[in-house]
C-alpha cells in the first residue's frame, strides 16, 4: 500500500505539457519579436558606431524624427480628451444613436489606413471637395502638417476610447452619484473620482495610441507627399532610404523609431510599477 504522497499537480497529468507550452511561447517570442529587433540594431551598427551616429544625426533623418514626435505630441493629447469624452458619454448616458457611435469609433480599426489617407486627399486635396475653399482661405492641409495630424488622429481614434469604455461601463455611476450627494461639482467629480478610477486603462490606451501614432505609415504616406526635410515622417524616411539602397541609414532610422517605442513602453512599465 502506498503511503500519503504530497501532490503538486493532478495525478495522471505530466508536467511536460505546461513546460512545453512555456518553452514554445519563449521560442516564438524570440523568433518573431526579439530577433528582428536585435537585427535592426545589428545592421544599423554594421558600419561602426561613428557611421551609426552620423546616420541618426543626418539632417533629413533628424527632421523626420522631430516631425514624428511633433505629430505624436499633438495627436495623443487630443485622442486622450476625445477618448475620455466618448467613453463617458457612451457609458453614462442613453441617447439615440449610442450604438452607432460605438461602431463609428471602431471604424478606424477595420478600415485600412491607406483608405483613410485617400479619403482625406479626396476631401481636402486641391482637386478635392473642400480644396477650392481651403485654397481661398490660403490653408494648406494636404502635403503639410495638418494633413499628417488629421490622418494620424483618424487612425488612432479608437485606442483610448476602447480601453476606457469597458471599465467605465463595469464601474457604473454610483461612485459619481455618491460624490454628487457629498457636494462635489463637475470638475471635482472628474478629477477626484472618475479619473483615478480609469487611470490605468487611460495610460494603456495612451501608450498604444502613441506607438501607433509614431509608427503610422500607410495613411500618412498618402497625405504627406513624402517631401524630404518637410513632410517626411520617420517611417516614410526609412522607406525612402531603403529604396535609395541606403540600407545602413534605413536601419539606423529604424533603430530610432524602435527606441522611441521602447521608451514609451518603459515609461508605462515604470508608472505601472508604482501602482
Amino acid at each position, binding site marked *: 500500500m502506498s503511503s500519503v504522497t504530497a501532490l503538486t499537480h493532478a495525478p495522471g497529468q505530466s508536467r511536460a505539457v505546461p513546460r512545453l507550452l512555456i518553452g514554445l511561447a519563449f521560442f516564438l517570442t524570440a523568433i518573431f519579436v526579439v530577433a528582428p529587433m536585435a537585427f535592426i540594431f545589428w545592421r544599423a551598427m554594421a558600419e561602426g558606431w561613428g557611421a551609426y551616429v552620423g546616420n541618426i544625426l543626418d539632417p533629413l533623418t533628424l527632421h523626420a524624427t522631430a516631425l514624428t514626435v511633433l505629430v505624436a505630441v499633438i495627436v495623443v493629447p487630443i485622442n486622450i480628451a476625445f477618448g475620455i469624452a466618448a467613453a463617458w458619454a457612451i457609458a453614462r448616458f442613453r441617447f439615440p444613436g449610442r450604438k452607432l457611435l460605438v461602431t463609428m469609433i471602431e471604424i478606424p480599426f477595420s478600415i485600412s489606413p491607406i483608405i483613410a489617407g485617400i479619403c482625406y486627399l479626396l476631401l481636402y486635396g486641391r482637386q478635392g471637395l473642400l480644396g477650392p475653399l481651403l485654397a481661398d482661405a490660403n490653408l494648406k492641409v494636404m502635403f503639410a502638417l495638418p494633413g499628417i495630424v488629421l490622418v494620424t488622429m483618424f487612425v488612432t481614434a479608437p485606442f483610448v476610447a476602447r480601453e476606457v469604455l469597458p471599465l467605465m461601463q463595469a464601474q457604473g455611476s*454610483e*461612485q459619481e*452619484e*455618491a*460624490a*454628487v*450627494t*457629498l*457636494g*462635489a*461639482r463637475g470638475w*471635482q467629480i472628474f478629477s*477626484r*473620482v472618475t479619473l*483615478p*478610477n480609469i487611470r490605468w486603462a487611460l495610460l494603456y490606451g495612451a501608450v498604444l495610441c502613441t506607438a501607433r501614432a509614431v509608427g503610422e505609415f500607410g495613411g500618412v504616406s498618402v497625405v504627406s507627399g513624402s517631401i524630404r526635410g518637410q513632410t517626411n515622417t520617420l517611417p516614410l524616411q526609412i522607406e525612402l532610404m531603403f529604396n535609395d539602397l541606403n540600407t545602413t541609414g534605413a536601419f539606423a532610422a529604424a533603430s530610432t523609431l524602435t527606441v522611441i517605442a521602447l521608451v514609451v513602453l518603459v515609461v508605462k512599465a515604470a508608472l505601472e510599477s508604482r501602482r
Partner: protein
Amino acid sequence: MSIVIDNMTKSFGGTSVLRGIDLTVQTGELVALLGPSGSGKTTLLKIIAGLEWPNSGGLRVNEQDWLGLAAQDRRIGFVFQHYALFPHMSVRDNIAFGLTVRPRAERPGKSVIAAKVEELLHFLQIAHLGDRYPAQLSGGQRQRVALGRALAIQPTVLLLDEPFGALDAAVRRDLRAWLRSVHQETGSTTIFVTHDQEEAFELADRVVVMGDGRIEQIGNADQIHDHPASPFVARFMGATIELPVTIRAGRVEALGLDASRLPRRALPDGPATLFLRPDDVTPVADASGRFQISRAASNGAILRLELTDGTLSLPVDLPRRAPEAQGLTSGTRVTLRPEAGAIFSGGRDAPAPRTVTEFPRKEQSL
C-alpha cells in the same frame, strides 16, 4: 427637517414608476420604504436625493422647494447598497471627501477636518480602520465607512438604499441595531429602502408599504400585519391563502368554513375574498369537512399541512404540540376555522380598492 412629497409621478420611457406619491416625513423620524422590487421605492429615494427628477409633483423640505435645488446643494447623506466607496482613497479620505470638496470659503481647515474624521471613526466603531483601503474591508465595515462618509457633511436628511442588502444575515442584524443607535444619537431624519419586512418593522418608526408605484399603506408592524389596507399588502405580508367567500350582514360565509372567530365587517353583501396567513387558520377535524389533509409534515415545532378540496390547495401551519394539532394526519377531513384574516369586497380577480388608510404614527397610537 420635515419632508413633504406631493402627488409625485415619474416614468422611464413610457413605464410609470411612481403614480402619484403623497408622503410627509416628520423631523427626526426614521421611515422605511418597504416593497418588492419594481415598486418604485428606490426611485422615490433618488428623487429626494436629487439623483433623479420627477415628471410632476412637489418636494419640499423645511418649506424649501427642493426640486429647484441641485443634489450638491441639498446636503443629503446617501448610502448605497453596494457602498460606492472611492476605492483609491483610504477610509479617512473617503469620510473626509464631502468636507474637502466644499468651496474654499466654506471649507473647514485641515486640522478641523482631520478631527471630525477621527470623531466619526470612533463614533462608528471603526477607529482602527482609518488607514485601510475599501478593498481591505469586509462588507459590514464598508457600509459603516459609507455611513461615516454620509454623516460627515452633517446631512439634513439621511437616505439609505437597501443598506444591508448585500450583507449576510448575522452582519445585517448587527448593523440594524447599530443604525438604530446611530439614528438615536444623531437624530437626523432618515429614510431607508428595503424589501425585507423584518428589517423595516424592527428599525423604522413608520413603514411605508409601496407597490407598483403607489403607497399602499403607512403604519407600524401591528397595523400593517393585522389590518392590511389592500389585497396587495395582504399578499405581501404573507397571506398566501385566498378564499372566495360571500358576505351576508357583515358575516363571512363559505362552504366548509367556520367563520365564528372573525369579527363582523362593514362590507356590502356579495362576493368577497378572504386573505389568510397559513398560521391564521385552525383545521378542525370534521368527518363531513370540505377539506382533506393531503400532506402532513413536521419540523419539530411546526406542523405543516397541505389541505385540498379537490380544486383548491392551501398550506396551513400550526404548533405541533397545540391541542388542535392532535389527531391531524394525512387523510383526515377538516373544517377551516380562521382566527384572523383580511377581507376585501369583490372576487379574487377584481381590481383592488384604491383607498389608503393612513394610520396614526406609532408613538401616538400606542
